[in-house]
């Protein structure tokens, strides 16, 4: 008897969880659809209000940087680390090229590169690394807690991947560049996989808002 009741309870629970899964999936699909529509029209993304927020980090010259310095200015923000062989230097170079392409309009845009590997990316190291790119790119690092906090508010995923011998590690991380409007809302994202012209257009759209 008891077993049957437990079995029935388990079935009910399973059905309930399945229903929740379907609902979450449906909500996700809906948001994605809305996000695509919003990207095309240039209005703020749904859920955009929940991405971003205040932060405090350290610049490559050792001074503190507060997100309040971004108030009223559109900005591009992306996350990476210097022990990164491919996507980070590529994105830094692309952003340098976009700034150059913008000409005088580049003054209106702030570009922020945030390290997700603060243990190895000291301000000095980051400064040296970034010297190969446009000097308008603001390099930021901080304590592990500060980086974790900005990662959380921008919904950025990152994790350490230890090497086989455990002596070294690399990192998995969100690679998109977030384009934020002057109100601090997410407007669009850039991917290194899309054509240069498309990225440039998205940046120009951001500045036109």
């Amino acid at each position, binding site marked *: 008897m008891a077993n049957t009741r437990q079995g029935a309870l388990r079935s009910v629970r399973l059905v309930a969880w399945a229903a929740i899964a379907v609902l979450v999936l449906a909500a996700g699909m809906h948001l994605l659809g809305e996000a695509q529509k919003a990207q095309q029209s240039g209005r703020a993304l749904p859920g955009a209000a929940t991405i971003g927020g205040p932060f405090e980090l350290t610049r490559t010259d050792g001074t503190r940087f507060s997100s309040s310095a971004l108030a009223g200015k559109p900005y591009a923000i992306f996350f990476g680390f*210097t*022990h*990164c*062989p*491919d*996507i980070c*230097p*590529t994105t*830094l*170079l*692309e952003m340098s090229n976009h700034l150059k392409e913008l000409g005088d309009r580049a003054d209106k845009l702030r570009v922020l590169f945030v390290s997700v590997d603060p243990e*190895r990316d000291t301000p000095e*190291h980051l400064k*040296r*690394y*970034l*010297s*190969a*790119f446009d000097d308008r790119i603001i390099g930021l690092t901080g304590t592990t807690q500060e980086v974790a906090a900005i990662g959380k508010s921008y919904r950025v*995923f990152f994790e350490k*991947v230890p*090497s*086989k011998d455990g002596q*070294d590690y*690399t*990192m*998995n*991380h*969100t*690679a*998109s560049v977030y384009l934020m409007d002057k109100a601090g809302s997410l407007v669009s*994202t850039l*991917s*290194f*996989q899309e054509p240069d012209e498309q990225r440039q257009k998205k940046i120009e759209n951001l500045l036109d808002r």
Partner: protein
Amino acid sequence: MIRLDLHTTLALAALLAAALPLPASASEVRVGDLIVANAWTRVTPPGARVAGGFLTITNTGKAADRLVSGTSPIAGHVEIHEMTMDGGVMKMREVAGGLEIAPGATVELKPGSYHVMFMDLKSGPMEGKPVAGTLTFEKAGTTAITFEVAPLGAKSPAHGMN
């Protein structure tokens, strides 16, 4: 006037080739049934500790082989890695057990995908200074290879090497 007959010229050419510091032609190397071609890397930002190496491997044989390891004087150690994109997240992992090259297949190591990972960089690749290295395959054995150096952030080799 010194006249060289054909044999002397060939012998001199062979001597010269043997004395050249580069281990092999940069564009194509044959090792066993494998052809390794178009090896390149790129300039890294100052202070970089890692760099990616790219190349194509064609297996002309009847059996699968695996790229299992490599070495280079510019790196403390070399691994074979794969980069993938998963919902906007860049993921990096070492290819466990080596990278398989099926019979008849050409595997491309390129940005955003498989690459040779130069780790613990002693000196970053510099433009105009090809990088020496070796690659070791499970069956075909070890071959010397030269990586041409493309500019910072290049998505393909500096000059068409095909």
